[in-house]
């Protein structure tokens, strides 16, 4: 994209310091209003939570190698899978892409100096940390055993673990999401640079916008619902427990009203990242820009109307179930549209097999499997046997974990040079992408079989069905490969901070405003407000190839 020329040369002596050098005190970080610094604060925090969530996952996988468990009591096992779910969903998957990559890139991509409300942005990080602290304290004081779904009346009347504290943590973290969502919406509406029309927005901005709409509309519902659980638990105000005149299934409706759209909160930003990376590494304009942009909004809208597909065996009425099933099939269509458009984008491109692109391929593989296996669960009859089994576990790991993590890592590897001004070793990056893809499939493909065989989720023991063991061992073997795959980037990315080659403003030859400014960018992003005169993704694969091969004729 064209912009004011002088900004390109960040190395000149007059250039302002980068956002990393704008202050070195701890206070300059903890009281910053700079969206880029807040993104880095988030990056550190989500990485720590991801580490602990993974630790819990490892304990689960080790435990399930044997039908009678290996080292844990059932109570402890229940607390470990609950901790895994809560940490990963509320403190990693939901904030990972919007709060790290979105925070850093959204203002730059639209040519703004910062988000609309910098202090609100900082507040949302503190809320997130406060929520996380409550979660950590709940675990430190003995844990919580309800599962991340907090189903009533178990959570409200029966569990004698730290349900209240955990819920308060999730409640507070919810406000962090809402604050970020509002900030993004206002920023996209009010802060676009001259010439940055709605249909010149990078698709990452469209998907962040759609995500923010879901966050702002959905999160208050789950916040209030969780608060009602606390009211019932602490003050015995009957809402969900039949003993107090409540309805336990009502909780499931309210919970999934948010928690199904929450899946899209996790996956839409990842889809946004894919658009940016796939165009750069194929040197192609995105295929079907409008279809991809509006499919994000379609997902955000329809996503609110399908929650009942979690409840086909809950006693929900048959007719209600039919409506939810039909709508669930409809919401699959916009996701399919995106996948086909990305495939068409690669056609006649100039494809570079570098680390971020390998992660994109990984995303497409995992997301396609995850999305298609969702059709088994949206179908009323097949769902009956498969719901609450490992089939569901495998499905949602493919979609929201495989999809989101592959998207996050694709984005992190793509914009890492922009974040920190350094390159990482590409060969190690490729190795990590391959290991994570292989490890992920080996971990979760066996779980589809386990689920079809009937292994219920959240089971500590299965000695009464020893035929499950082979598939559990295969899954655990896959998980160990996955663990190695995650450790490698942690090492080389940290290494690159000090020893990596300086990246320069645009190491990939990418389009987009963020590649027109120095790496790392100055605090104000742009020295002059850029003026946008082009469509996004103004790549030309044919021309680039022609330039590369100018001496020889192109073979037809």
């Amino acid at each position, binding site marked *: 994209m064209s912009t004011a020329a002088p900004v390109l040369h960040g190395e000149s002596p007059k250039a302002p310091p980068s956002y990393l050098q704008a202050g070195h005190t701890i206070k300059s970080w903890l009281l910053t209003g700079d969206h880029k610094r807040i993104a880095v604060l988030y990056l550190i925090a989500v990485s720590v939570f991801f580490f602990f969530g993974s630790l819990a996952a490892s304990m689960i996988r080790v435990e399930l190698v044997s039908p009678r468990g290996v080292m844990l009591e059932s109570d402890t096992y229940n607390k470990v899978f609950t901790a895994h779910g809560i940490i990963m969903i509320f403190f990693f998957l939901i904030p990972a892409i919007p709060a790290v990559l979105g925070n850093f890139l959204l203002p730059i991509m639209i040519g703004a100096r910062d988000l609309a409300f910098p202090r609100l942005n900082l507040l949302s990080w503190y809320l997130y940390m406060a929520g996380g602290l409550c979660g950590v304290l709940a675990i430190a004081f003995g844990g919580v055993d309800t599962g991340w779904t907090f189903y009533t*009346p178990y959570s409200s009347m029966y569990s004698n673990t730290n349900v209240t504290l955990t819920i308060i943590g999730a409640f507070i973290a919810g406000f962090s999401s809402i604050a970020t969502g509002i900030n993004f919406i206002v920023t996209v509406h009010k802060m676009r640079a001259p010439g940055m029309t709605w249909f010149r927005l990078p698709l990452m901005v469209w998907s962040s916008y759609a995500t923010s709409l879901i966050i702002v509309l959905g999160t208050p519902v789950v916040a209030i619902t969780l608060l009602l659980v606390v009211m019932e638990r602490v003050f015995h105000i009957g809402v969900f427990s039949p003993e107090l*005149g409540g309805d336990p299934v009502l909780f499931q409706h309210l919970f999934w009203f948010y928690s199904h759209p929450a899946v899209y909160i996790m996956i839409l930003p990842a889809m946004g990242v894919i658009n940016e990376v796939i165009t750069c590494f194929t040197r192609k304009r995105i295929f079907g820009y409008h279809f991809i942009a509006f499919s994000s909004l379609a997902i955000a809208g329809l996503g609110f109307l399908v929650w009942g597909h979690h409840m086909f065996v809950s006693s929900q009425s048959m007719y209600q179930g039919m409506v939810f099933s039909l709508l669930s099939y409809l919401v699959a269509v916009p996701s399919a549209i995106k996948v086909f458009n990305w495939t068409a984008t690669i056609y006649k491109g100039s494809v570079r097999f570098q680390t971020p692109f390998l992660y994109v391929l990984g995303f497409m593989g995992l997301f396609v499997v995850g999305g298609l296996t969702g059709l088994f669960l949206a179908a009323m009859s097949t769902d009956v046997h498969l719901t609450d089994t490992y089939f569901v576990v495998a499905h949602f790991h493919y979609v929201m974990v495989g999809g989101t993590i592959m998207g996050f890592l694709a984005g992190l590897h793509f914009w890492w040079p922009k974040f920190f001004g350094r390159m990482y070793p590409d060969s190690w990056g490729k190795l990590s992408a391959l290991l994570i893809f292989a490890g992920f499939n080996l971990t979760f493909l066996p779980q589809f079989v386990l689920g079809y065989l009937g292994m219920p989720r959240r089971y500590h023991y299965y000695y009464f069905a020893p035929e499950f063991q082979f598939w559990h061992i295969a899954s655990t073997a896959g998980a160990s490969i996955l663990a190695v795959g995650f450790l490698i980037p942690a090492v080389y990315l940290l290494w690159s901070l000090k020893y990596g080659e300086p990246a320069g403003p645009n190491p990939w030859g990418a389009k987009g405003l963020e590649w027109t400014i120095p790496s790392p960018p100055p605090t104000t992003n742009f020295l002059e407000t850029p003026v946008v005169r082009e469509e996004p993704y103004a790549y030309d694969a044919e021309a680039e190839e022609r330039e*590369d091969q100018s001496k020889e004729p192109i073979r037809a």
Partner: protein
Amino acid sequence: MNFPLMPDQASNFARPYDALFFVLTALTILFTVLVGALVLYFAVRYRKGNRVDRSGAVESHLGLEITWTAIPLLLGLVMFWWAAKLYVDTRQPPADAMEIFVIGKQWMWHAQHSNGVRENNELHVPVGVPVRLTMISQDVIHSFFVPQFRIKQDVLPGRYTQQWFVATKPGKFNLFCAEYCGTQHSEMGGYIYALPPQEFQKWLASGGDKKRPNQPTMADLGKALYDRLACANCHGSQDSERGPSLYGLYGSKRRMTDGSVVEATASYIREAIKNPYAKINEGYQNTMPEYRELTEEDLLNLIAYIRTLGTAKAPGPVLGNAGPAQIEGGIR
């Protein structure tokens, strides 16, 4: 160590279920391979430096967009319809199904046969005979799951749910609790024993050696309770000033003081005993005491007795998840 790929097919639902499951699996594999192959083929063929024709690439194509919107949509609608039809079958028990009552509690399954035979963590059923389970939980939500039958139904506190099936082969099959219910959730299981009909009748008559001589039936136990609690003082053979008669109550439509019309299902009767003020019959006062101390077993026995007092119609689908009866919204 063996590595099985599918569970046994042991109920009337298993084969139609698996047919749909396999078609969905085939579609999943087909589309995964299709997309995967296209993506890899394009990526490799158009890799940087490979000299191939790149001219004429377009950035959108309405015909393609419509094609790849319409095909998944149509396939999806077919799958939806197929699955919905199968689901409806699983929710409509035949009227002559044999009834068994199941109570779930942390962390065991308790079953009661109409003749009074009881079992724990085991359930004996005849092969080839439709069986209808009426289920309730005494505490948290559980879920009755038999993989070899391809059935699963949540078991709720405060509301009856039901499940039906026909076992199609004799054998011993896993029963799991599929809804997380606390510490020993994974051990809240047991076995379904499907027996050939004659063998089942023999088992039922002897209660698997556990039946006491002259074991009272559920209705007998309900009658004893009905007498002990002196229910007839207000609910005799005729409507009185204090309360309506329970003769012919079961399955009838009752008008409430708020003008609504409620079908007297098992769930309704259970609520009327436990929490009589929730709905009050037109023409009566809220004078009945709440019988909160009654156990779920007591309530099932009482309902069994009330059913013997005559039904307004043949016992059809009685319960919430059967469909139309759900409209009232279940017990609150």
